[in-house]
């Protein structure tokens, strides 16, 4: 009995980590598989749930315009808030809308100003680099929540179009 105890104490220093090693190796393989090389990232939240689509086109880096359930964000900076307004055609129901005082005709003024800044900056950058690849092509990534009504999407698209962004890329989740 005493002998056994002594031996256990002698070997007490090396912990059996083989099984942990197995686990880690498996985790490593899975993480490597899901390694992202894409430039575009989304921060999913309950306010921004992208729709799923069968499209397989990979996203490119461009100006990032997010239309979440509560606000519009351009390249990480919030531009304006969306409000719940009573639905004109459907009394008693609420619908998401751009506040009227933010609109000037069909254009969302704050968004227009911000996007125009972005367009000018991108254009200047493209001219400086002199590289055809970096030329400003008016590409814009649109991350729109799946619940947003078309009236809001239309205003946003129209505003972007006025600010010289004409190539829309709608960001979606790839369906399996």
């Amino acid at each position, binding site marked *: 009995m005493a002998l056994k105890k002594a031996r256990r104490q002698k070997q007490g220093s090396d912990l059996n980590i083989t099984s942990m090693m197995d686990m880690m190796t498996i985790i*490593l393989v899975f993480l490597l598989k899901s*390694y992202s090389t894409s430039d575009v990232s*989304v921060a999913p939240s309950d306010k921004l749930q992208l729709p799923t689509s069968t499209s397989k*086109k990979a996203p490119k880096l461009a100006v990032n315009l997010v239309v979440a359930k509560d606000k519009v964000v351009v390249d990480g900076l919030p531009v304006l808030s969306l409000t719940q307004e009573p639905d004109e055609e459907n009394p008693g129901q609420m619908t998401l809308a751009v506040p009227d005082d933010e609109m000037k*005709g069909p254009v969302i003024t704050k968004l227009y100003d911000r996007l125009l800044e972005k367009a000018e900056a991108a254009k200047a950058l493209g001219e400086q680099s002199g590289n055809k690849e970096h030329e400003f092509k008016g590409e814009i990534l649109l991350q729109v929540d799946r619940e947003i009504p078309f*009236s809001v*999407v239309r205003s946003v698209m129209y505003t972007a179009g006025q600010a010289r962004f004409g190539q829309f890329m709608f960001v979606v989740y*790839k369906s399996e």
Partner: protein
Amino acid sequence: MAVQRRIQEAEGLNLVPVMNLVTILIPFLLMAAEFVQLAVIDSTLPQIGPTKPMEEEPEKPPLNLSLAITEKGITVLGADAVLFPDGKPEAAEGEEQPPTVPCKSGGACTGVDDYDWKRLTSILAQIKDEYPDDENVILVPDSRIKYEIIVKAMDASREDVDNPGPDGKPRLLFPYVVIAGGAM
């Protein structure tokens, strides 16, 4: 007994450095891992401006395929009239009021899955048979149509997933989507 113990000791490989490496690698990979795969759908603004004069007379009248998405369903518009892809006049229902692809539930669509996407795709596939060179479709959604439904309509008109072509890939229908605003 002595032999057995020697074998046991020989097997004891020192995994601790490997372990260290893996433990450090895992947080880094976790940071870069993407759990949702992203894709994009390209679309352009409808061209505004003076219409270009036609340089050559096309053999066929242009298709100008449009999909009007309303809460009652989807109406397929081609060259300003509801196109009956069945071709034959006797297949035409005569009525123009109901949408080409009504909701599965009959009345107003309750959600994305209530729209009959399979039927829309099959109708578009028939149109594609007649106009194999046409690749554009114009979406005209109603103001209250949710973005999700618009994306789904783009999916349904892009490719025919259920009928893969000879190369095994889904047959491309109308991949170039333009979203038209309708009246502001």
